């Protein structure tokens, strides 16, 4: 299993061949299309992260010391971005997730999507993922 940073570097590598914004976005959109959608039954209020414009659903599963994420969005670009984020963070330990440093968005020139004032719910989603990490770290310690 690759580390969080290795996966990030892989994505950065993928993006190096794209000089054009359109190529980058096509990659993200494809990512969004491929991402397995969350079933309607799970798209409940508890799992939603509201941006003003696009909405994000996030589900976390803890199994064998690892956290797995499923995410979805009603906007395809947001969905592609959450897909990249789950790809980077899923399957790692709560500690690794809580302490992760997500640098790939900036490196591939998409940091604007993480602006706190962006209306897509993405930053709130990252916070939520890390909060899950922290919460399960604490749980683990209590066991």
């Amino acid at each position, binding site marked *: 299993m690759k580390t969080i940073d290795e996966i990030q570097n892989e994505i950065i590598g993928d993006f190096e061949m794209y000089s054009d914004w359109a190529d980058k976005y096509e990659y993200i959109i494809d990512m969004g299309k491929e991402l397995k959608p969350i079933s309607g039954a799970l798209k409940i209020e508890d799992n939603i992260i509201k941006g003003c*414009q696009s909405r994000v659903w996030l589900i976390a599963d803890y199994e064998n010391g690892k956290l797995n994420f499923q995410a979805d969005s009603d906007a395809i670009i947001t969905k592609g971005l959450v897909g990249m984020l789950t790809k980077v963070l899923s399957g790692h330990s709560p500690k690794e997730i809580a302490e992760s440093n997500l640098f790939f968005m900036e490196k591939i020139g998409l940091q604007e999507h993480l602006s706190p004032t962006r*209306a897509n719910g993405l930053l709130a989603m990252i916070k939520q993922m890390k909060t899950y990490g922290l919460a399960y770290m604490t749980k683990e310690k209590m066991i």
Partner: protein
Amino acid sequence: MNSANNDIIQSIPFDVDKIRAQFPILNIQVNNKPLVYLDNGASTQKPNSVIETTNFYYSNQYSNIHRGVHKLSQIGTDLYEKTRLNFQHFINATTPSEIIFTKGTTHGINTIAYTYGRKYLQKGDEILISGMEHHSNIVPWQIVCEIYGAILKVVPIEQNGTISLEKFKTLLSPKTKLVAMTYISNSLGTINPIKEIIDLSHQNGSHILVDAAQAIHHLPIDVQELDCDFLVFSGHKMYGPTGTGILYGKEALLDALPPFEGGGDMIKEVRFDKTTFNDLPFKFEAGTPNIAGIIGLNAALDFIKEIGLPQIMAHDKQLLDYCHQQLGEIDGIRFFGTSQEKAGVVSFLINEIHPYDIGVILDNLGIAIRTGHHCTQPVMDFYNIPGTCRASFGIYNTMEEIDVLTNGLKRAVKMLS
């Protein structure tokens, strides 16, 4: 690539290039593409005259106004009051006392909501609004209705984004104290039959506030002819500075209302046992106002007057027609707001594509439109959609820019489908 119809371009009633040259921002590049600014419903850009007036004021004339004996204070006061007179004449108010400077439309509506509520609203009274109101013409009424136990009634919108006068009539009741209605919808473009709505309100014995945020720079407004009781708009949507706005009210009504904010300038005499309030318009202008903003706003109004509202309307109409025509050719496009009487706002969705996605792709092409609910969530709920894409036009927009938009949209659809 479609090229703009030459006939239409040539009939534009003024020289758009000359106008564009007055807006420095129109020369910038966004994401390495020339800016195509189609978000004028949210706010308009500023001409040089506005920027320079503010600049000059701060660099050569600034001080606090009212009550200062020294020269700078006199100059500032004179300029500030000149703006008031200019607006008095522009909307044909009876006296300058009827022109209150505010922070913007929202602030103007809240001023009336709080003071009208305090003076007139009682348990069971009704406020009547429409289903297409901007949040700024909904929430203040919800707040004061809660405070005073009044009830908010809503005239629903029709499929084409208009309201039916018949339905409006049935909702007017003896309990309707005040009607608050937009002249032009910011998310649908609908121009409401405001004169009829005002007359029906008055026949019912109700007061009426008109939200003219989208109308003031699009249609000639004569408050005496309209006979509305209150009318509000923002400076920043009419090519003026942010943090400025106007609240018009009939003198007798404004006189009858209690003051809203307390503070400097709105008082005659302050004693701990009894304070008396200043005359209009100062009664409603508490504290140091946005002096530089109001002085800059005068330049914005002069700019509009110089071009002329009939010319602006004609230009707006041409852009609107051409935009409808061009975008109409995109497969799967749905327009929201298809009233006969419509201003330069085009709201749409394409197939199942989320408006956010379209907004992001267009942004990468240098095209600024707005996506989302446009502060009219009830309109989105009515159509059961998450939001729309909205292109809205200004004085400086061109047919070519609509071509750029059309092509951008086609590209976005291709990428996103």
